[in-house]
């Protein structure tokens, strides 16, 4: 059953259909927003609130964009509002010696091997240093796989702006990744950018 059918069923009173939409997209949305917010903190709450708003406003959904894009836009607005309201920022830090630290990061593995978790922490550290608008557009494109038009829908910006902003985000991200990797004591790594 596709999204349109689930929406129709929800509007006709079948709330379970909306539950299916939630299940379909909750993990994807949480994952994406974690990268945008730079922290897992509050993400689930933001996602829940986004779906709540989607449910309440479902009759206003024009279906010009996909349901996911629409929910994402709601969630993004909530996330950015939360972020502005809260003094809490991303807790990940890159130490002077280049080690990536965050509250969940115990530091390098005992054997010094760069495992997947560390690689992810490096990427997230570099991502967290980007300006918000660059981080968001990069996540929408690379993690969510949205095309420029959908990104424009989410962010309410023209496609041309998406294109230029994404380019700048990539260039900036490349620079930040280089800084992180240069400071990494284990040297070069497979798949390094």
């Amino acid at each position, binding site marked *: 059953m596709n999204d349109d059918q689930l929406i129709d069923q929800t*509007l006709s*009173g079948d709330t379970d259909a909306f539950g299916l939409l939630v299940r379909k997209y909750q993990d994807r949305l949480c994952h994406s927003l974690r990268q945008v917010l730079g922290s897992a903190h509050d993400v689930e709450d933001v996602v829940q609130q986004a779906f709540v708003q989607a449910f309440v406003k479902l009759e206003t959904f024009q279906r010009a964009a996909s349901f996911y894009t629409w929910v994402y836009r709601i969630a993004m607005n909530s996330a950015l509002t939360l972020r502005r309201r809260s003094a809490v920022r991303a807790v990940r830090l890159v130490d002077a010696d280049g080690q990536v630290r965050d509250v969940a990061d115990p530091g390098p593995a005992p054997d010094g091997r760069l495992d997947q978790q560390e690689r992810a922490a490096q*990427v997230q550290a570099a991502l967290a240093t980007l300006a918000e608008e660059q981080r968001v557009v990069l996540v929408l494109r690379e993690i969510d796989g949205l095309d*420029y038009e959908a990104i424009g829908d989410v962010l309410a910006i023209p496609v041309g702006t998406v294109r230029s902003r994404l380019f700048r985000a990539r260039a900036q*991200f490349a620079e930040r990744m280089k800084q992180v990797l240069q400071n990494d004591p284990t040297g070069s790594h497979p798949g390094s950018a």
Partner: protein
Amino acid sequence: MTEAHDDDRELISALIDGELDGQDRARAERLLAERPELRALADEFRALGERLRELPQLPVGRDLGESILRRAEREVLIGAAPSALADRRPSIVRRLAHWRPRSLRPIIYAGTAIAAGLVLMLSSETHPPAEVQPLRHADPATQQQADAKIHAPPTALAASDPAAAKPSAPLAAQAPPLEAAKGGAISNAAPPLVMQRKASALDQSSPAADLTLQAELARLGIPDQVAELSQEAKALADQQPPGKLADAWTLLVCEARDDEQARELAKVVASSSSGEKAGRSNAAQAKRQSPSEVRVLVASPQQLEKLAGQLAEHSAKPIVEQELPGLPTLEQPRSPVEAVDKLERNADADGGARRLRDQGEKLAAANKASDSHGSTTYRRVLIVIRRPPAEEPAKPTQPAK
């Protein structure tokens, strides 16, 4: 780096996204063929994309659907949804009316209380100023009289042993025992800090509001009661000509650190919703009018459930007069400022907001002083504000010359 160079790089960025066609695409492909540094750039951008897509996706680990629908229900019930959605509220509620949570938790009980409370608040816009009364009547005779008004439920509201008390039948059929002392369960399903619905949001002339109430009660399985409540409240409101006072109750469910804080909240609510309204800020006039009663009941979720059942069963008759013992606590750190912020949103624009803000700051300061860890145990309280009957029209007094 020249601007033209950046344009070329941007073109390459768009090319790897498959966002070019026609002349732009042909130009980008030509650039790639001619300029090795742009080929390297394209490779770098692709590799970065791979790194981002490799980030481990941590599943939520549970189905958010139920809690989302519960939150949606709560927003609709307390009117937190944007006012622009007011016209659609009936349809939203109709959708929710088909939903049954797998495990009914406090929101159900609170929702019932609210549904009953909403009806009783229909005419609160025209209420006189309220005075905060002690939790119990100072005068034993008055207390006895009030107690006599209590319509005893199948099990006493004030049962000293909550475990021994049975919930009212309609709810008991649906609701499992509450996990009152389990912070996690409560924090996920606890009612909002303050559940207050302004009378203006429940215009008795609005079929939408009526439908909302009926749908909510239907969802709770007690449609008869809500219909009765709704009719009684409407009749009550209809009997009151514009400008006259009506008898009504305001019922708030909120969380407070202790009884004292709850009373403070009650004072703020009572004063902000009446004393400064519509030119009635004159102290002499306020004194002349019959005071209302404001009582603060500290209630466990089970007790709230019983109260809700009573309200549903006995509609607008005065039934709340008891201090409720055996309080479970909710380990749910909350800022009093947040509590008052929510009150503020519900407060009247004319002075109420400012008073609430001041009150919030005081409460925050008190909380900070007494709670160095920033975490406070809050418990749910029920604040009942009873308005005096409309015995006489409120004639404006001539100002002293």
